C-alpha cells in the first residue's frame, strides 16, 4: 500500500484486483477501486499482472465455428455503412469518409464501462435468486422436478430428462463419441414431426453431457437426440439414439 491512503483506500487495497479484472465488482465498487488505482502503485501492478490472465480467459471457452450466416449479416451491415458513407461524401458531408462522432462515442462507451453496470443493482438480486433457484430445483429432484428415464440405443449409455416447469435438461452418460464432422442434435416433437433445436453437442471422453432443451417444453411429447452432420440438420438424418417421452 502506498503512503497517504485513506481508511477506505486501505480497505480496497490488495483485495479487489482479482474481482476487478474479472468484472466481478459492483458498479460502485468498480469506480471506487478505479479511483484507488490512481494513487496505489501496488494495486496497479497487481491489476496489470492479473489482467493478462483475465484477457486470456476467453480462450478457455470451447472453440466453436461462427455460423456462416453471421458473417453475411455483419458484412451486409458494413457494406451498407460504406454505401451510406459514399453517399454522404457525394453531398460533401463526410469528405474524408471517416467514422462519425456517434461512432466515436460508441468506442468510448465500450472502452469505458460495460453497459450493464447501471442495471446491476436491480439485476443482482434477481440473478442470485435465479441461480439459487436453479440449483435448488436440480439438486434434490424434488420441488416440482420430474425425472424421466429416456430410452437409449447405444449399449451401456443412459440418459434422463429433468423437467422443471416449462424447461427441461438432458443428463447423459456413457454415450459414444460422435465421429469426426458429426455432432449430436436435440429435437422436440409436439403434434407433428420432430423439430430441430439449437442444442448441438458432443460428449466428454467418458460419454457425459448435460444439455438444456432450448425454449419451453410446454406441449412437447418427445425429446430425442440424433447424430447429425457438423452444424446440425433441419430434419433428422439418422435414427434417434435417445428418446424421452415427456407426456
Amino acid at each position, binding site marked *: 500500500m502506498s503512503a497517504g491512503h485513506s481508511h477506505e483506500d486501505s480497505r480496497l487495497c490488495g483485495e479487489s484486483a482479482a474481482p476487478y479484472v474479472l468484472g466481478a465488482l459492483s458498479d460502485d465498487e468498480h469506480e471506487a477501486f478505479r479511483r484507488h488505482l490512481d494513487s496505489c502503485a501496488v494495486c496497479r501492478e497487481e491489476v496489470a499482472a492479473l489482467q493478462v490472465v483475465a484477457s486470456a480467459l476467453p*480462450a478457455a471457452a470451447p*472453440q466453436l465455428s461462427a455460423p456462416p450466416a*453471421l458473417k453475411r449479416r455483419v458484412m451486409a451491415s458494413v457494406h451498407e455503412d460504406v454505401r451510406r458513407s459514399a453517399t454522404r461524401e457525394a453531398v460533401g458531408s463526410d469528405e474524408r*469518409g471517416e467514422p462519425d462522432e456517434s461512432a466515436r462515442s460508441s468506442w468510448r462507451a465500450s472502452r469505458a464501462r460495460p453497459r450493464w453496470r447501471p442495471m446491476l443493482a436491480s439485476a443482482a438480486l434477481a440473478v442470485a435468486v435465479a441461480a439459487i433457484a436453479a440449483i435448488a430445483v436440480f439438486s434434490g429432484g424434488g420441488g416440482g422436478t420430474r425425472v424421466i428415464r429416456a430410452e437409449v440405443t447405444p449399449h451401456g449409455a443412459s440418459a434422463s430428462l429433468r423437467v422443471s416447469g416449462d424447461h427441461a435438461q438432458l443428463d447423459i452418460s456413457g454415450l459414444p463419441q460422435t465421429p469426426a464432422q458429426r455432432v449430436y442434435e436435440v429435437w422436440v416433437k409436439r403434434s407433428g414431426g420432430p423439430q430441430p433445436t439449437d442444442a448441438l453437442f458432443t460428449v466428454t471422453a467418458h460419454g457425459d453431457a448435460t444439455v438444456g432443451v*432450448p425454449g419451453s417444453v410446454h406441449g412437447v411429447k418427445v425429446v430425442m437426440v440424433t447424430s447429425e452432420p457438423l452444424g446440425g440438420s433441419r430434419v433428422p438424418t439418422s435414427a434417434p439414439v435417445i428418446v424421452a417421452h415427456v407426456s
Partner: protein
Amino acid sequence: MIQWPARAVTMGGMFNPLRPGGGSGSANRLRVLADEELMQLVYRSKADAFEVIYDRHADAAFSLAYRICAQRALAEDVVQEAFLSLWRSRARYDRNRGSVRTWLLGIVHNRAIDALRRRAVRDRGQVRDEGLQERVAAPERTDLDVARREEAREIRDALDDLPDEQSHVIELAFFGGMTHVQIASMLDMPVGTVKGRMRLGLAKMRMTLGDPAEMVR
C-alpha cells in the same frame, strides 16, 4: 510456456497497405497483414480489410459469446453487435491500448454478460444450457487455427488444473457474469474468501502459463 506463433506480418516490399489501390489479388495480400495494419485500412472504411479481421477472430468471438450466453441466437446477436461496434468506432482504435483481438473479445465479453443479465431478469428461473460440453467444434483451417486451438487447450487446462474452489469462482465471475458478492451469497461463504480464491487462481494460472500476454494477441 506456450510460444505463440509468429503473427501475420507484412511481407516486406510486396504490398503497401496504405498505398491507394492494392492491385489485383489484394484480398489475399490483406491476409498476410497484422491486425494493427489492417485497422489502418479499416479506419479508411475498407470493408475488405474488416472482413479479414472478421475471419480471423469470429470463431473466438462466437465461442466466448456462446460460452456465456449458452444460446446460439443470443450469442450470434452479441457477436454481430461487437463486430459492428468495432467497425463503427474504428477511428478510436489505439494499438497502444492492446491488440485488436483482446479489445474485440472485451466487447464481446461485456455485451454477452449484459445479454445474460437481461435474460436472467426476464427469464428468472429458466434453466440455462449450462454444463454443455463441447459443441460444434471449429475446424482447424490453418496453422494459426491449430496454434490457437493449442493455446485454448493450454489455457483451459490451466483453469481446470486449479483447485475446484478457485476455478469455480473465476468461472462464475468471468463466464457467469456474477459479482463477488453474488458468488459469496450463492456459495454461502465470506466475500473475502471469494476474492482470495479469485486472486489465488489467477496468480496460479499466470505462473502456469508463463506470460499469457503473449498468447492473446
